[in-house]
């Protein structure tokens, strides 16, 4: 996928810079873009280390199993083929919970751990399994219950009711999550039917 997207982004940027006469800005972006990546990474390293450690402790103390028991009935509906994969479901539960609580920094490391476990049970290690497609799509649509970051910013800029957007946000997220899961599931279903005919 990145083999197509990356060149497309570069070419599009170049053409647009020619059209808008922003070549000096583009040149600066090329020169300084790497620095922005390092900044992002510094945040990520700390979060990955810290939450990786927490995950390990939580697993051995049996807390992830408890959490998984609470969330799994729902997850088993979305991932019927993972019914028996307790270890993988535990990591997915941790990621989904972190997402719902709006803990983006914790959700990514936990989600990557879940991806590793999904990869361990994947038949073709080059190609995403149905479960992987669904899981990543769930992570691209925010599953937040409380929009903490947005509310904080709104308060900062003098909103009378920072939390007033909570209900519309929740409904929007839920709908987009449903659309994402439906498209992902439909794609898998069509592929499987096409596979049966061949």
């Amino acid at each position: 996928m990145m083999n197509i997207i990356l060149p497309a982004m570069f070419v599009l940027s170049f053409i647009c810079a020619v059209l808008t006469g922003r070549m000096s800005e583009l040149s600066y972006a090329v020169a300084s873009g790497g620095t922005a990546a390092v900044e992002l990474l510094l945040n990520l390293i700390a979060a990955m280390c810290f939450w990786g450690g927490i995950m390990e402790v939580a697993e051995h103390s049996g807390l992830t199993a408890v959490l998984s028991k609470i969330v799994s009935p729902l997850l088993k509906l979305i991932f019927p083929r993972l019914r028996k994969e307790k270890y993988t479901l535990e990591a997915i539960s941790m990621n989904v919970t972190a997402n719902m609580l709006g803990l983006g920094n914790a959700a990514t490391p936990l989600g990557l751990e879940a991806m590793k476990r999904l990869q361990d049970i994947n038949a073709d290690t080059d190609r995403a399994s149905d479960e992987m497609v669904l899981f990543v799509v769930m992570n691209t649509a925010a599953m937040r219950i409380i929009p903490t970051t947005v509310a904080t910013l709104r308060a900062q800029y003098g909103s009378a009711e920072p939390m007033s957007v909570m209900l519309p946000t929740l409904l929007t997220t839920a709908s987009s999550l449903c659309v994402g899961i439906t498209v992902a599931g439909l794609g898998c279903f069509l592929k499987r039917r096409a596979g049966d005919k061949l």
Partner: protein
Amino acid sequence: MINHIAQWVLPFAVTIVFSAGSVKGLKVFELFRRGAEKGLATVYSIFPTVVALVVAVTMLRESGAIGLIADVFSPVASFLGIPSEIIPIGLLTTVSGGGSLSLFRDVLKNDGPDSFIGQVSSVLMGATDTTFYAVSIYFGAVGIKKTRHTLLAGLAADFTSLVLSSFFVKLFL
């Protein structure tokens, strides 16, 4: 009120995990170190992807591409009842969290958080996550090359958010 509850979540999670481990008599620090090392190894494996993507997104933003694409989409947007100021935020939020956040701040500063545009962009920011970033990082971490229809489904979800954010704001606020 809800903000106060949110402040409790992280400290509570850390405390409960470590106390549960200690009560069980586990060597919590050794376990923590082992998990943290795994996390570090993951960062190492996704770093090349992050660098490429961040440079590409910075270029896309600085070249004025986002603005041009937004112009192309604005007739469709006005047909769907989406304020045209929201389109750049909607486009950027699929590729870069930091980029859309700075646009969001601009809207809050210029139009005010309680204006219609301020409310719609708040909902949009709360309801979406960076699709390209998540897809490339999650698959990059395990070396998957064929991502199938993940991106399509992710973008369909983003588009839904874009359309519904203004709809639900009109309905409820």
